[in-house]
């Protein structure tokens, strides 16, 4: 079922979210047309139950789509909106039109908040759908970033908070996006190493490059599997699954970005080269919704409270 979905989804992203289109949105351009195309595709309700007009897919089934969003550096909160719409539908609340971001924090930047209409705000007691026009939206000023700090009182239109809060599911989403971008930067680095000639042969023939690229591949596979592990529990992931997914992907993200840039050399730093669309996001998603150390602290506390072997802990959700 997932393959049938993935192909049209990727085709759509190729059409509407080309690197040029991504750059245009990042530069403050119009994003509504891109959003309308995504909304018209019906994919936003992939996680909404069939009885409520959605596709009734599980998060695990949708995971390849979330990876595709990461791989294409889509500059809109598509995964966030999918999750928000599913949580809202589950609570019997009509979803607002337009993009929704997941605001698990009011202290640090929320990715894509500059290109959204609403936020699903975790108040600690409930989740509240809040129009961004009623919140304070403070852009970060980071070049090309669409993230912003959101603050202000949440609206009263509230729905039950997942047992592990909004940050857990948001972290799983980030893990999927990182996994998708990881796959793309690995492909780009391997392709570049195979065609870039120095010292009379492709640089990918150098053992030093081969060793670095093979470690990238290991990190890429680890990110994919960890993201899938995070999705296994659905929209209210167990802390262990969410933490494992975010720790593995967040720890790998800067390594992958650094190696991809190292392979590409100076051209990878250039704005007109597409690599930076992905590596800037790898860093942003790593920091969003808790870095590897945040989740390591959470997971470590849970582990130390569990009188069992590490093998048992690793295999039990």
């Amino acid at each position, binding site marked *: 079922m997932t393959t049938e979905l993935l192909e049209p989804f990727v085709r759509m992203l190729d059409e509407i979210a080309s690197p040029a289109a991504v750059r245009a949105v990042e530069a403050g351009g119009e994003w509504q047309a891109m959003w309308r195309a995504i909304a018209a595709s019906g994919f936003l309700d992939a996680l909404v139950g069939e009885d409520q007009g959605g596709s009734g897919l599980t998060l*695990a089934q949708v995971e390849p789509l979330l990876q595709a969003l990461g791989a294409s550096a889509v500059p809109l909160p598509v995964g966030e909106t999918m999750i928000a719409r599913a949580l809202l539908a589950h609570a019997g609340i009509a979803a607002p039109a337009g993009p929704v971001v997941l605001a698990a924090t009011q202290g640090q930047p929320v990715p894509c908040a500059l290109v959204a209409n609403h936020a699903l705000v975790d108040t600690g007691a409930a989740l509240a759908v809040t129009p961004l026009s009623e919140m304070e939206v403070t852009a970060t000023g980071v070049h090309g970033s669409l993230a912003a700090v959101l603050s202000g009182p949440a609206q009263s239109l509230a729905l039950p908070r997942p047992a592990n809060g909004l940050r857990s599911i948001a972290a799983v989403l980030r893990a999927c996006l990182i996994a998708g971008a990881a*796959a793309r930067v*690995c*492909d780009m680095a*391997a392709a570049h*190493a*195979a065609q870039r000639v120095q010292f009379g042969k*492709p640089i*990918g*023939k150098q*053992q030093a*490059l*081969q*060793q670095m*690229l*093979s*470690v990238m*591949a*290991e990190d*890429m*596979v*680890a990110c*994919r*599997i*960890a993201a*899938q*592990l995070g999705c*296994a529990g659905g929209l209210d992931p167990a802390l*262990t699954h969410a*933490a*494992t997914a975010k*720790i*593995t992907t967040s*720890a790998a993200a800067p390594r992958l970005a650094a190696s991809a840039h190292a392979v590409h050399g100076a051209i990878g730093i250039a704005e007109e080269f597409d690599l930076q669309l992905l590596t800037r996001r790898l860093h942003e998603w790593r920091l969003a919704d808790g870095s*590897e*150390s945040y*989740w*390591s*602290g*959470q*997971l*470590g*506390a*849970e*582990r*130390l409270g569990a*009188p069992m*072997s*590490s*093998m*048992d*802990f*690793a*295999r039990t959700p």
Partner: protein
Amino acid sequence: MFDGLTLAALPDAAEAVRPKIRAFLADHMAGIAADTRARSWQGFDAAFSRKLGAEGFLGLTLPVEYGGQGLGPFARFVVVEELLSAGAPVAAHWIADRQSAPLLLHYGTEGQRQRHIPAICRGEQVFCIGMSEPGSGSDLASVRTRADRNADGWLLNGQKIWTTNAHHADYMIALVRTSGTSTDRQAGLSQLIVDLHAPGVTIRPITDLTGDAHFAEVFFDNVQLADDALVGQEGDGWAQCTAELAFERSGPERIYSSVVLLDAWIAHLQAVGRRDADALVGRLTAELATLRAMSLACTALLAAGESPVVEASIVKDRGTGFEQELPVVIGDDLAAHPDEPVSAELWRTLAYVTHIAPSFSLRGGTREILRGIIARGMGLR
């Protein structure tokens, strides 16, 4: 890239084996110190392996008609992770069960299968793998040990070294040259079953830096082997050997080598009630969970009948990196609290794993060789 490696779940039939092996281990592993359990791979206990065989915990992937359990790679995954987590002494059956029996099943004659596989499943035949030689480590294709055809079969001359458990083994599956010279590289290599009790075989154990003797050097001086010592096709030894290494590299054993130390350290933290290591514990716990899922993904490829050579190298390289990191960071954590008492047992476990850890990324192919295999899988070579 490497799209086949994707999250897999253990089937219920495989999970059904877990309570049984766990009960067995509860009966047989009580009261054994952590530093002894940390030796798991190197722990040689023939009686223990025979008991495992009698209870049906060996030959899990092997067909019932050869004395196996016919349960497949997932059941083996469950039993192996339980054995390694408990730190059970597995050396007496490890290589035969994992590599030799599947090799003979794939390439052996009916006579070879009958002679060895049922006995391996009973834990009664100990095998070792003769690959490295004094002049051939990572460059395995340069082996010089020779077997020449004669009227009675094969006449074997040469030397193997760093052979795990050779001094305890009944048989060696040796990679030797049967034609040409070492300049012919992979061509002209064959695999032979060598009866280590045959005249002309001399085995000298080599003591390692922990004081154990887990490997040995083996000399062959005009050792006469029967005609049916040859495994598979003459000259196909390299390809057979590569397929065999996929078995060695893809199992969960490549993530659990230091897990007894990890558990002993966590028990220490729980006992002293110290909480400043939460983030380190969490990071290591996440890595173990990710590696376990990666290893299970690799097992799913084996279960689907594939030979995941590159995928297994990915899991093994990352897994051994984790295994080697554990003693480094655990040692740092313990000694970062110089006034906190640490039991002698934990200290010995830490030291043992610290000292033996370099072998984790040597056995079954070095880190550098594995990364070359991965790079080839990425189209770079």
